[in-house]
Structure formats: C-alpha cells, structure tokens
C-alpha cells in the first residue's frame, strides 16, 4: 500500500534512509513542513500521522506504508485556511514563519489530546479530565521551539480556538 498524504496517494521511496520529513519536502513537493534540526529537537517538522502528531524527521518514510499523513498544506490553504491558521494570523502567532507550520500542526493535534483526556506534566489531577489552562497548553507545546519568541501570541491563538474555557 502506498502512503497517503493530504488525501493523495504517493509511492514510497526506494532509498530506505529517506526520512518522512525529507520525503514530504523533496519527493512529495510539500515544503510547508520545515526542517529545523533533523533530530527531533525543535518540532518544526511536526505532521499528523493517522491523526496523531509526530516529528517527521525522526521517522523513516518506508515505515509509513498505508499511513495517512496530514501536513500543514492539508490543514488549510490560503483560500480556505483552518481555524487554527486564522487564529495564528489574527494573533500574530509567528514572525519569521519557519516554526509556524509545526506549531499549527502540533496545536491542532494537541487540543484533541486534551479533549481525549490525555494527561501531561502540567495536569494537577491525573484522575480528572485535563483542563485547558495556559500551563497545560504551554507544557504540551514545549516540543515546538520558536526562536523568534512568538510564544505569548501562539498561546493566545490556541486559547482563541479552544474557546473561552481556556
């Protein structure tokens, strides 16, 4: 089975060394996913695989036979941006824009993780459902570095999407 990226099937690469990140950027022509470190340290390469966020640089493309991958391009486009993309725009949740696709993919998946009741280091009561506090958002987004320092605005954008409860 091929790999499906944003609803389009692609053949897997012949070279087993190709990371999912390089496959997206160089083979599938989807350069929206960024490479900041290639070592799982920055989150710029975050994509959703079967709905779950991962660092695509830490994963070899050939291991994704049959998987559904959603990249920043799959979340929304300039003509029909997603709610999260619009919130980043409104809150100036970016500056240079290089960490941004990773932040947005990560935030999109992160809200689902909270909704599904996954705890984090910031969760006070592991028995109860996690609350959408600023601290929860910051903890769960800490794998996405932003050297421009747009964090305060990114958190505001995520709160905006999550609604007043945050």
């Amino acid at each position, binding site marked *: 089975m091929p790999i499906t990226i944003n609803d389009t099937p692609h053949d897997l690469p012949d*070279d087993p060394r*190709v990371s999912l990140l390089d496959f997206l950027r160089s083979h599938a022509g989807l350069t929206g996913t960024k490479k900041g470190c290639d070592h799982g340290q920055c989150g710029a390469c975050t994509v959703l695989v079967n709905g779950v966020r991962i660092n695509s640089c830490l994963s070899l493309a050939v291991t994704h036979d049959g998987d559904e991958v959603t990249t920043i391009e799959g979340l929304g486009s300039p003509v029909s941006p997603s709610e999260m993309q619009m919130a980043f*725009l409104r809150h*100036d949740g970016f500056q240079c*824009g*290089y960490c941004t696709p990773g932040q947005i993919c990560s935030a999109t998946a992160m809200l689902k993780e909270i909704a599904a009741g996954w705890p984090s280091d910031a969760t006070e009561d592991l028995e109860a459902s996690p609350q959408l506090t600023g601290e929860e958002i910051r903890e769960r987004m800490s794998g996405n570095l932003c050297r421009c*320092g747009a964090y305060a605005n990114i958190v505001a954008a995520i709160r905006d999407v999550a609604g007043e409860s945050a």
Partner: protein
Amino acid sequence: MSVHRKQDAPDERNVLDTTKQGVLGEPLERPEGLLKVTGTATYAAEFDAENCLEGVLVTVPVVRGKVTSIDRESALQMPGVVAVIADERLTGRAAQGMAGEAPFQPAQQVCYWGQPVALVVAESFEEARDAAKHLAVEIDEDGDEAPLDPDAVEAEQRKPTKNGDLAHAMTQAVHSVDATFTTDGHASAAMEPHAAMAQWDGQSLTVHASLQMLKFNRAELADSLNLKEEQVRLISPYVGGGFGSKLGISEEAVGASLAAMELGKPVRVVMSRQQVFQTVMRRSETTQRVRLAADGEGRLTGFGHEARVSNLPGEEFAEPVLQSSQFLYGGDNRLLQLEVARIHRMTAGSVRAPGEAVGVQTVEQAMDMLAEKAGLDPVELRLRNIPDKHPAKDKPYSSRKLAECLREGASAFGWKEGPRKPRHTREGEWWIGSGVASAARIHAVVEAKARVTLRPDGTALVETDMTDIGTGTYAILGQVAGEMLGLSLDDVEVRLGDTDMPPGSGSGGSFGASSCGSAVFLACEGLRDTLAEKLGIEASDLSLKDGFALWEDEKKAITEVLDGKAIEEIGHFEPGKSTEDYAVASFGAFFAEVAVNHWTGETRVRRMTGAFGFGRVLNARTARSQCLGGMTWCIGNALTESLLFDPTDGHLANCDLAEYHVPVHRDVPDLEVLLLEERDAAASPIQAKGVGELGLCGGAGAIANAIYDACGARVFAYPMTPDRVLAAMPEA
C-alpha cells in the same frame, strides 16, 4: 526619477502626522501572514529546480591545522556522488555583518573545531550525507598550542573612554559598587538552518539564499568567487530568522555556488543544525567589571565598565559590550575599556543586539546593588541618574523616553515602591520576588533605496532588496507607502529580497525599518510632488486618502490623475550628521517577577512587563511582537543559554537544540508590552528608531535582580542556572 536625501538635520516636519490615510502605526496583520500559516511561503531550500543536486559540507575535528589531502577518489566511487568541491575559494568562516568582501579563505586553513573544508555533491541528500561522513581528510594538525581559554591569553586593548579619575571617585564615594560578572557565549539559533540553492548559466549566478543583507551579501559572494557583482543575483523573499547569523554569507552559499559553477547544474546546500552551531557565529562570552561611585543621594559621580571578549585571530569584530554604557547613566568620572582575547573558537560576531544583550544587564545588576546600599527604590535610583546630556560627549539627546518607560512600566506591573529587602514572600518551596532594569540600545541608520510605483489602477508597488526576517518589513513598508499615497494596505504590494531590485539597508542592527522606511517615504514624497504638479497645485496643499486626491474643496480619483500612466520614484536615504550631532538611542524598562525554588535553585519567570520608546511606531502589532521576542530572549539569556566549549580540544559540546537551551513555551509566561509613542526627528525622516533588539537589552538584569529580591542570591554569572543560584543562596 529619484529623490535623494542625506539627513544632516532633524526632520521636525513630522509629515506622517499630517497625512490623512491613518494606516501607519495601526496593528494590521502581516500581508504575507496567510502564506506563512499555510506553509506556502517559500524559504531558500524550498525553491524547485530541475535536476537539482544536493551538497553536504564536510567539517573537521581540529582547532588548527592545514588540510594536506582529501580522498576524492574513494568518495566518487560511492553511489550517487558527483563531485567533491575543495576549491581554494571555499570560505572557512562566516562574513561579518556589512563586510561586503570575501570572508576568510581558503577553507583548507583550519582555525576552529568544526570548520568546513569541503563539499560533497551527490544526486540525493542521503547519498551526499553518507559520502560526506566517509570522506577521508588528512590534516597537518597544529592545535596543541592553539589558545582556547579567553582568560589565559594576553588581550588586545581597544581605545578606552576616559573622563576624570574613576579610581579617585570610588574612594570619595558615599556609596559604591565594584562587581565582576561573566556571561557565557550565545548562539543565534534561527529556526531555519542556513541554506542556499545556486544556479549558474555560464555567465551569471542566481542563488536562493537565507540571508539578511543582500547588497552586502552579493558583494561578499562575488568577491569570494572572483565574479563581478553584476554576475550575482540573490533571492531571499522569506528568511526563517536571522538574529545576526545571516548578516554575512556563510559556507553553504559559497559551496553551493562553486559546485553549481563547476557542474553546470543547480546545487542545494543546507547546513545541519550542528554545523550551524559549530561554524556560523557565536556571541562571545564576556567578563565584565562594573564600578559605580555615588554620592549620599545615590547620584553617580563615577561610572566604570570594563569588558573582555574574544574572537579568532584576524577578526576585527569585538562584542561591543560597552556601547550603551557610553550614554545610559551619568557620572563625571568615567572609564570604559574593552579588550579582545584571541582564541580558536568559531567566529564571534553579531547575535541579536550585539553589545547591549550582555552589557546592559550587568550594569543593571550593579545599579540594583547600589540602590540597596543607598537605601533607595531601584526605580527611583535610575530616575535620579538619567543624565541631561551625553555624559562623555557634549551633545544633547535627540529624544528619550527612559523616565516615562520606568514610570509607566512600574505602574502597569504593579511595582511596589521602596527599597528592596530580599526574601519577603514565600509560597511553599518558592521564593517570590521582582526586579527592574532599564533598556537601552544604540540607534543606527544605513543607506537604503526603494522604488515605489503608482500604477494606473491606483495601486502601489514597493520594491527593494530589503529582507523580512520576521520583523514585519512587508507590513511596515506597505504602511509607510499607504500612508503617504492615501491607500489601504491591501492596495500596496511589497516585493522584497531580490538583488534585482534597488538596494535597501538589509536587516540588521534594528536599522531596517527606519532606513528602508525612510527610502519608501522619500520615494512617496516624490510621487506626491508629481501628482500635485499634474493637478497644478502645491504639494503642501495636497491630501491623499482612500485613492483620492483632495485639495481645497476639490476631489479627484488618483486613477484619473494618473490617466493611464504609471509614475515611479526611487527613494534614496542616506544617514547624515543628524545622528552624529545628537545622542540617538532607544530606551525602555523591564519589570520581572520570578519564583526561585529554595531547594533546587530553579528559577521560573512568572510574568514580565516591558515598556519601550523607539520613535514612531510603524505597526503596533509587529512592533509588539518584536518586543515579545526580545523579552523571550531575555529569559534564555538570564537562565539557560550558554555555549559550552570543551577546555581540552576546544569543540563546542552543546551544538544542538537539545543541549543549547533556548526558551520553550513553558519557560515563557504572559508578557506585557507597552509601546510609548515618540517622535525622534534626528533618528530618521520618519522619526522612527529600531525595535528589533531593544526588548533584549537589559531584561536579563531585571530577572537577575528579581532572583535576588526573591531569595537573596546575588548571582554574578549568566546564565543563572540552578547550580549557580543554589551556590549563592544564603544559608538562613
């Protein structure tokens, strides 16, 4: 046509306050924002070219030596490998900002651990990476004697500033402070690694690159390759952060270009994260002695700031630690002295806010110590020491909001007035305290050109090779043009980052907005004159708003005035005497609240307020974001960022983002930013100064002072890691 102005005197006309559109300063969204949030903005490595080859740089693990042989043959046997480039023109260091000439060549002469010496080019990235890893390089090593420790070598003295007799003032002082601080080295760590994709057509070279200052970079690249500048075109519409690291060209641009020229095919080279850390630029570590002498009221009578920094042999740049100490506070007896130690670490150069990013926070800590000795509120002490005129040179300040920032910042933060006594508040394991620091950053402007065209359909086009590195250039240049021409931002198109367009200032030293903004302003002044002429009226009688020309009781659509013909002007701004005749700088104040863990020494910043005055605000949203970014850097600077070099072999031990700790989401609390409107007529024809760096100039000192106020630990070494805080924690 072109409008040229060299600013020899302050421009008090404040033209932009008389225009009618009302778009300038507004917190508008970035016009390129939608591309960035949808992943459709194209960065250097992402441009498509048919049959593009991939290059990987090869670095060597010695601090000094000479490459004697490279085993090309074996590499060329490997799958997919096309070439090994080890040309004499390959550069071994990054160019300093505004160098405009080739950096150190040849790369085969190794001066620091991790220097690139060759480039392997292959069909695919994976093949190139593998071959680069296996390339056998022989080196005549001469590293044993190479100095590695900045404190163990004789340093070169730079010209000091000396007034009066500081030593005497110290002995006469009622209150005095004499303290020595250290700051560790910093990395820019822009999120986009350095990247270039070069194409050669036999005559001319086109390079998609990630660079901040294209007109200088073009000259640097041409000089490195022995080409004429006219043969080189650089394209950088989006830059994934720079922070100084992309001021000058680095090895990837030269390597990609040499390979493309040799092979006649496009070649892409992207540095690995480790290579960016090891080869590009570092902010030098510093050792700083600060001396303050004061009278009984806490007024400074003496001010001393001495600093030792380091760089490679042959590099002129020395972290300008004392830059703002020249003018921030008074004191008639002054001594400012910078010295440079020559050691073998990668090039020291500009990292966001060179100088002030490490030089202001130490002075601000010393001021805190003085306030304690004098029994004064730290805010009050600072207010008492704002000088009437430049303390060393007899010249006035152009405009300065320091006192306002201290007062308004204090009130927004909820600063409790009065002298500080540490350990006043405890919550469980945590001591809670707050601290203040002033912010200061020199002002600079640089020659810049921009072309503005009013098109027959009434929209405008702004073109310059200026870059937007996240700073908001697309927005603010559009706003300056829109304000001058009576257009909404939607009706102004801004094209940046291509050396085929008029040369701007480049992004660096916080001078991009005021320099290029002034060039756009001048071009628009020319266009307004032309429109007035077409209408047969004086330019001073003309207003432009929402696409209409208005004068007396008349009104005419701009499209009608243009009558099917585009008009264009090139604005050419040059700095002149106005910035020499006045002390021109940006100022501000930081307030921080921290919690320090009594048992572990861990510090968490709980909230921070910054108040800043930097002349005219061109876009309140992007300006605020610049301040947020700077304040975020303050947190890293104060608590976590440190380049760690191995003392035995000189290699950088923490050369990645897992070990070099930039602030992450959870390190950064809610941050409050106050923008104080100001007009600085001497700063630029648009009365604007810089904001990109100010938010980083002193704030780490506010955090340090808050640590002391919280737990009583006075730490003299940055970053204030838990071990350092614990070691300074008082017993009781």
